[in-house]
C-alpha cells in the first residue's frame, strides 16, 4: 500500500525521539558558535547603501525567474529613460516661469517645441490647435508679466516676446487653415479670441514703450513695429476666419447660428476698434495746422475731401459706389481702389511742403475710404454676407493703417514745425507773432539749426491697396 509506505516514510522524520536521527543540542550550539566565528571573519563591515545590483538581487530572490529577468530589463530601461528625462524635466520645469530675455526662456521654448512636434505626429487638428493656443497664451502671459514691472531692458525683452508671438500666431493659424470644414470655423473663432488678447497686450506694451524716456528712438521704432504686428494679427485672423467660412460653405454645410453670431461679433469688434484708432476731429485739426504751416492751405480743403481728391493728378482715388444693395455689394460692382502716393519720411526734418500736401491727401483719401468701408461692412454683416464682410474688414484694417501713418507724419510735421521752403529763419517771426505762443517760438528756434543743415529728400512710391 503506497499510502502505508508514505506514512511510514513520514515516520522517519518523527523518529527524533530516538536520539540518533536528531543532532545533539550541544553539538548544534557549538557548531553554530564555531560557524558564526568563521563567518564573521570572512565579512567586512560595509555601508548599507542601495545599489542597482541590490535591486536586481532583490528581484531575483523575491520574484519568479522569468519575471525577474523581465523586470530587470524594464528596470534598466526605465532607469535610463528616467535619468535622461529627469535631467530634461528638471531644466524644463525650472524654465516654466522664465520670461523673454531670461537664460531659461530658450529652454521653455524648446519644451514647447517638443510638445508641438509630438502632437503634430499623433494629434488631430483640434489637439494641435489646443497645444498651439496654449503656447500662444504663454506668450501673452509673458508680455503681461513684463509689462507689470518694466525693467531697464524692457524694449529688448518685448521685442523678443513680440517676435515669438508672431511665430506662434502664424503657426496656430497655419494649423487652423488645414483643418477640416466641419471644425475649421470653430477653431478659427477660438484662436481669434486668443489673438485678440495678444494684440491687446502688445498694444499696451507699445503704450509703455511710447512713454519710455530711455532709448527713445529705439522704443519708438519698436512701438511702430508692434503697431504693424497687431495690424497683421488682425488681418491674418480675419483671413483665417474668412477661409474657414468659405471652406464650410464650399463643403455644402451651413454655419451654425452660434458661429454666425460669433463671426459677426468679431467683425463688429474689429470695426469698433479700428474706428477708435482715428479721431476725426483731431485729424481735421492736424490737417489744418499742417496746411497753415506749409502755407498751402486753400479755402475748402479741410473737411472737403472730394475736392481734394478730384484736384489731385498724382493720386487717384477711384470710388465707384454704384449700388448700396446687399446683392450688388457682394459682387465686384463695389470697387474701392486706392492708388495713392504714399509719402515716406524717414525723419521729420526731411519733410517738404510737397510732402505735406501729399500726406494731407493720403489722410483725406484714406479717411474717406474708411467711412465708405464701414458702411459696407455694416450692410454686409446685417445681410449675413460674412465672407465679404470679413474681406472688407481686412481692407479696412489696411486702409486704417495707411491713414494712421499719414496722420502720424503730419503730427510730426506739426510738432516740429519744420518747412524747408521758405527758409527756416523766416518762420519763427511769422508763427510766433501770429500765434503769440512763446513756447512754440522757442521750439522753432531750436529746430532752425537742424533743418538748415539737413538734406531734404522726397521719397515717393506707388502704393496700391485693394
Amino acid at each position, binding site marked *: 500500500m503506497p499510502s502505508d509506505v508514505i506514512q511510514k516514510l*513520514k515516520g522517519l522524520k518523527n523518529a527524533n525521539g530516538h536520539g540518533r536521527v536528531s543532532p545533539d543540542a550541544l553539538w548544534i550550539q557549538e557548531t553554530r558558535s564555531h560557524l558564526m566565528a568563521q*563567518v564573521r571573519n570572512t565579512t567586512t563591515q560595509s555601508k548599507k547603501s542601495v545599489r542597482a545590483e541590490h535591486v536586481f538581487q532583490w528581484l531575483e*530572490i523575491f520574484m519568479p525567474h522569468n519575471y525577474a529577468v523581465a523586470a530587470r530589463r524594464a528596470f534598466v530601461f526605465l532607469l535610463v529613460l528616467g535619468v535622461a528625462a529627469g535631467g530634461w524635466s528638471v531644466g524644463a520645469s525650472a524654465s516654466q516661469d522664465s520670461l523673454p530675455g531670461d537664460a531659461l526662456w530658450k529652454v521653455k521654448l524648446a519644451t514647447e517645441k517638443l510638445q508641438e512636434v509630438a502632437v503634430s505626429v499623433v494629434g488631430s487638428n483640434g489637439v494641435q490647435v489646443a497645444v498651439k493656443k496654449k503656447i500662444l497664451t504663454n506668450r501673452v502671459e509673458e508680455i503681461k508679466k513684463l509689462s507689470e514691472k518694466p525693467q531697464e531692458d524692457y524694449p529688448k525683452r518685448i521685442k523678443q516676446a513680440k517676435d515669438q508671438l508672431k511665430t506662434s500666431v502664424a503657426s496656430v493659424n497655419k494649423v487652423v487653415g488645414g483643418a477640416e470644414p466641419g471644425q475649421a470655423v470653430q477653431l478659427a473663432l477660438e484662436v481669434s479670441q486668443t489673438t485678440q488678447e495678444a494684440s491687446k497686450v502688445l498694444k499696451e506694451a507699445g503704450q509703455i514703450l511710447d512713454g519710455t524716456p530711455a532709448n527713445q528712438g529705439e522704443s519708438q521704432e519698436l512701438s511702430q513695429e508692434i503697431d504693424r504686428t497687431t495690424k497683421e494679427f488682425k488681418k491674418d485672423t480675419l483671413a483665417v476666419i474668412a477661409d474657414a467660412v468659405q471652406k464650410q460653405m464650399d463643403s455644402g454645410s451651413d454655419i451654425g447660428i452660434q458661429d454666425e453670431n460669433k463671426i459677426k461679433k468679431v467683425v463688429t469688434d474689429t470695426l469698433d476698434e479700428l474706428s477708435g484708432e482715428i479721431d476725426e476731429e483731431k485729424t481735421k485739426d492736424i490737417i489744418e495746422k499742417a496746411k497753415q504751416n506749409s502755407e498751402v492751405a486753400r479755402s475748402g480743403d479741410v473737411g472737403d475731401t472730394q475736392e481734394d481728391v478730384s484736384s489731385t493728378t498724382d493720386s487717384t482715388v477711384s470710388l465707384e459706389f454704384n449700388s448700396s444693395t446687399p446683392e450688388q455689394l457682394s459682387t465686384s460692382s463695389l470697387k474701392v481702389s486706392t492708388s495713392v502716393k504714399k509719402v515716406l519720411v524717414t525723419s521729420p526734418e526731411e519733410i517738404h511742403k510737397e510732402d505735406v500736401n501729399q500726406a494731407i491727401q493720403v489722410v483725406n483719401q484714406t479717411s474717406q475710404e474708411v467711412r465708405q468701408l464701414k458702411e459696407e461692412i455694416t450692410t454686409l454683416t446685417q445681410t449675413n454676407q460674412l465672407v465679404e464682410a470679413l474681406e472688407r474688414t481686412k481692407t479696412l484694417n489696411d486702409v486704417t493703417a495707411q491713414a494712421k501713418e499719414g496722420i502720424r507724419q503730419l503730427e510730426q510735421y506739426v510738432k516740429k514745425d519744420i518747412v524747408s521752403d521758405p527758409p527756416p529763419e523766416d518762420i519763427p517771426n511769422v508763427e510766433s507773432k501770429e500765434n503769440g505762443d512763446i513756447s512754440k517760438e522757442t521750439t522753432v528756434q531750436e529746430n532752425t539749426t537742424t533743418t538748415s543743415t539737413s538734406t531734404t529728400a522726397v521719397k515717393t512710391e506707388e502704393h496700391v491697396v485693394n
Partner: protein
Amino acid sequence: MKDKIQEKKLLYKIVVHKDAEAFGSLYDVYVERIYRFVFYKVGTREDTEDLVSDIFLKTWNYLVSNKNTEVRSFSGLVYKVARNAVIDLYRKRANSKEHPIEHALGVEDSQFEKNEQKQEVAEILVLVRRLKSDYQEIILLRFVEELSIKEIAKILDKSSTSVRVTLHRALKKLKELSS
C-alpha cells in the same frame, strides 16, 4: 508562506549585506533538516556532524563570494550543497574501499529494531536502504524533508516531470519490496 518570505528576506540580507546574523537564523532553521538528510545518507553521527558543519560553511562562502549569484531559495542551495558533500564522501569511501553506509545503517537499524515502538519506522528504513541511490534520495527529500517537487527538481538539477516519474518509480519499487 510567511516563513518563505522571512527566509527570502534573510537570504537577501546575506547576499546583499553579508549579514552573519541572518545566516545564523537560517542555520537555526535548517541545521536539523540537513543533519537528518545527511545522516540518512551517510549513516554515522561522526561523518554527519563533520559534513553538516562543512555544508553550512560552504553555503555561506558561496553566497557571499559570488557577486553574480542568482540564488532564489536558501533551502534549494543548502540541500544541493549537502547532496554534493555526500557524493564527495561516497567517492572518498569508494577510494578507501569502505562500505560505511551499509555498515552504519546496519548499526542504526539495529538501534531502531530494539525499540518496538519504532519497529515500523525501522522496517521502512531497511527497505529504503535497499533502493538504489537515486530513489533513496528522492524519497528522503519528498517524504522526510517534505520538499516540493519543484524544490527537489532544483536540488537534483532535473525537471519537475523527471522528478515525478522517478518518485513514482521509487514508490513502486518500495511497495514491491514491502510486499
